[in-house]
């Protein structure tokens, strides 16, 4: 019954989104307000329909309705309700369903927000979004139907993927990532509308940039949450492996970040318009490519690509978006073409230009490393991968240059700058950078990569702080406010700029933490009988006893945990465990992580002997890792601050854009 409702909602959703696209294209051509409203309402309807389908699936999962294949594969009667619910996105079909719900939700939000403005543009944006939605509805109608039934109906299901039900983070990381991915369809649709109607002015670019920043915030949070999940759940002591699945999320983030910066330049003059449009199309295409890579199985092997039709559909989607986007840009090239003098070599414009070159160069490198194995396998049949050291080596110079730029860029004036002025601005920050390097050496940081990172971060951080202090001091002088009050006043009067600075500071914090933790980690492996101890640096770990019992929350899961006493800089009783899930051949690591501001003490159980109670554990001291998550949170906070509506100006902007 629920399966029929869900499947019906999907099929009707396909029809309604096609109708929305057709009505909106006609509305765009005829400027018929009635048709435009019909198209818009049809998009709202697709959101309701995908909500109905998601609800049908969620209820089926919670009720363990094993007559639906997806439920039988990803649920069991013993699965706790929370994990039953989040199994909605535990596998391919459910993920696409949830994805469609978020996509149509974002679309409805955008169309509702602009329902009575931008009458000329919105039908084209509506048509684009409706076509993207139609693509996803068609994927669910044909190659990846979430509501396929199965007979005979079993009394017990397979249960969700063991890795995905071992930690509540799985309820957080995919929705954030999907919100980012799906939201990036909005700038694409708005750009398509701008190109079709030749509305390529600064006001419209500002609108596109705002609607990019929203999804970008979720994408950033999703990537950071994914790294955190990997760190807390997998038990390998790391958070980023340059895995194709991780790269798939990073790629659109890199190009979207490039766009957020290039749009600032494009708004100011007529330069970088074409480039900015290319970045938007590329970003959207990369979100589709990411889904293709992670969902078609092509990463495991090119040959698994042919095993499911989903790969061909997504490859078609990638190509369609690429061809359509490029054709549109070529068609409007005369309108996009820049004019005006080139920027001075040392100016904020050229800093933005360099930023964009670096971000797109980095994106190209990551794409190359990710696709190279696929191409080799497709051509010659050999299976290989590009190792993480390659990615580290290739990306490091780019990240270093970006760290330098993210302080220098904001400190450089628009136009041109004189050398004495430059010297005055950069002497103190250079000293600060050198100071932070010395401090790092004193604190025990070794190796060129982390020290260079510290130097660059100190330099850029001092530049950013200097910018804020200068502006706040100016305001305090003229208004007589106290310094902090003046700084807040300055920041809230230009949210975009100071929110950006805050995001930059978050990047600096995370960069230091990544560089130091990647090079300064210490690890050891020990075999301990009950009562024995081992030492790593200042920590002592004593093995108390080995406990084996079923989990209280899910008795089908059998847990083997080592109860350990840790003493040293952080003292605690911890119990890293291995969990045996009935549907997993291998036990799932459940590491223990003790976190402090200085370092994490990370313990993971590798093996055990049930008779003697002896264990093999691996210990890591990972310095500064907590600051990666803090830095990520600051980036998100900064971006949110930047797009927070500026109350007094908000109304004026809408009028200006519309006028």
């Amino acid at each position, binding site marked *: 019954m629920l399966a029929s409702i869900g499947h019906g909602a999907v099929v009707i959703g396909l029809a309604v989104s096609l109708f929305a696209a057709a009505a909106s294209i006609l509305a765009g051509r005829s400027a018929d307000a009635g048709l435009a409203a019909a198209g818009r309402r049809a998009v709202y309807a697709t959101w309701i329909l995908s909500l109905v389908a998601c609800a049908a699936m969620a209820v089926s999962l919670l009720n363990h309705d094993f007559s639906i294949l997806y439920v039988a594969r990803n649920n069991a009667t013993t699965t706790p309700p929370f994990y039953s619910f989040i199994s909605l996105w*535990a*596998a391919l079909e459910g993920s696409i369903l949830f994805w469609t719900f978020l996509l149509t939700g974002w679309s409805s939000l955008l169309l509702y927000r602009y329902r009575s403005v931008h009458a000329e543009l919105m039908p084209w944006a509506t048509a684009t979004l409706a076509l993207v939605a139609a693509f996803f509805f068609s994927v669910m109608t044909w190659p990846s139907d979430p509501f396929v039934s199965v007979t005979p109906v079993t009394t017990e299901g397979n249960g969700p*993927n063991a*890795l*995905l039900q071992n930690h509540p983070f799985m309820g957080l990381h995919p929705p954030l990532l999907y919100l980012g991915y799906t939201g990036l369809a909005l700038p694409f649709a708005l750009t398509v509308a701008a190109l079709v109607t030749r509305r390529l002015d600064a006001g419209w670019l500002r609108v596109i940039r705002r609607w990019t920043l929203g999804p970008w915030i979720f994408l950033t949070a999703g990537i950071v949450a994914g790294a955190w999940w*990997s760190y807390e*759940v*997998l*038990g*390998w002591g*790391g958070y980023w*492996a340059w*895995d194709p*699945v991780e790269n798939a999320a990073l790629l659109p983030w890199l190009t979207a970040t490039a766009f957020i910066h290039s749009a600032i330049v494009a708004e100011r003059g007529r330069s970088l318009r074409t480039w900015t449009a290319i970045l938007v199309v590329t970003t959207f295409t990369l979100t589709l490519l990411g889904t293709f890579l*992670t969902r078609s*199985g092509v*990463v*495991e*092997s090119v*040959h698994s690509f042919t095993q499911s039709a989903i790969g061909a559909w997504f490859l078609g989607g990638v190509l369609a978006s690429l061809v359509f986007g490029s054709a549109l840009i070529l068609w409007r090239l005369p309108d996009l073409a820049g004019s005006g*003098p*080139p*920027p001075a*070599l040392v100016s904020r414009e*050229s800093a933005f*230009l*360099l930023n964009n*070159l*670096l971000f797109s*160069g980095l994106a*190209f*490198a990551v794409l*190359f*490393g990710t696709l*190279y194995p696929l191409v080799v396998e497709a051509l010659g049949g*050999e*299976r*290989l*991968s*590009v*190792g993480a*050291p*390659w990615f580290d*080596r*290739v990306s490091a*110079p780019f990240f270093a240059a970006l760290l330098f730029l993210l302080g220098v860029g904001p400190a450089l004036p628009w136009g041109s700058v004189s050398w004495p002025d430059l010297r005055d601005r950069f002497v103190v920050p250079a000293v600060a950078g050198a100071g932070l390097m010395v401090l790092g050496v004193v604190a025990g940081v070794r190796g060129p990569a982390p020290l260079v990172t510290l130097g660059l971060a100190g330099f850029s951080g001092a530049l950013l702080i200097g910018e804020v202090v200068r502006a706040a001091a100016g305001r305090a002088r003229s208004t007589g406010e106290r310094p902090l009050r003046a700084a807040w006043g300055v920041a809230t009067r230009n949210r975009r700029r100071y929110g950006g600075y805050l995001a930059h500071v978050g990047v600096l914090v995370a960069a230091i933490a990544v560089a130091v933790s990647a090079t300064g980690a210490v690890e050891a*492996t020990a*075999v301990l009988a009950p009562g024995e101890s081992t030492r790593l640096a200042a920590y002592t770990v004593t093995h108390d006893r080995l406990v084996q019992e079923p989990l209280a929350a899910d008795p089908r899961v059998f847990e083997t945990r080592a109860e350990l006493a840790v003493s040293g800089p952080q003292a605690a009783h911890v119990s890293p465990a*291995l969990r045996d899930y009935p549907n997993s*051949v*291998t*036990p*799932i*690591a459940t590491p223990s992580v003790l976190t402090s501001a200085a370092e994490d003490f990370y313990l993971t*159980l*590798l*093996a055990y002997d049930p008779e003697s109670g002896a264990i*093999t554990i*691996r210990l890591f001291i990972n310095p500064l890792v907590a600051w990666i998550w803090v830095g990520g949170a600051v980036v998100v906070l900064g971006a949110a601050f930047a797009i927070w509506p500026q109350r007094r100006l908000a109304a004026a902007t809408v009028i200006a854009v519309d006028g």
Partner: protein
Amino acid sequence: MTQTAPLPPPARRRAWGPWLAVAAIGAILAWLLFSGLSSALVYYLTPTELAARGEAAVGAPVRLGGLVLPGSVSGSATDLTFVLTDGETEITVHSTVAPTSSFREGAGAVVEGTVRADGVFEADEVLVRHDENYVAPSDYPQP
């Protein structure tokens, strides 16, 4: 006749700077991409494929997948010797890094490392995968 001649375009400073930057970054990128690529490539092989490479396989990074032969595991966690098999060829593996929880006799295992001159596979990494669609190595295509 001078009436119809088009006016020369207004003198404009040519924008060489950005193109130089593009060329420089492009060149650096190309150098970075290709300079270390061949040594960074890790081949995925089954024991039979590895054996077929003979002497040529010595020293090159390889990802070897197979089943841990029951009864072949000996030594301690940090000085471990075992045999990986695909049912056709058996390769002896030595590892000084303790295997992860996924390591069990009879179960699939993936190790990364190099073949020593004496034919023993020296593993320096036991792979951690977190792809939710990860297929156990026992499903590797059999030659």
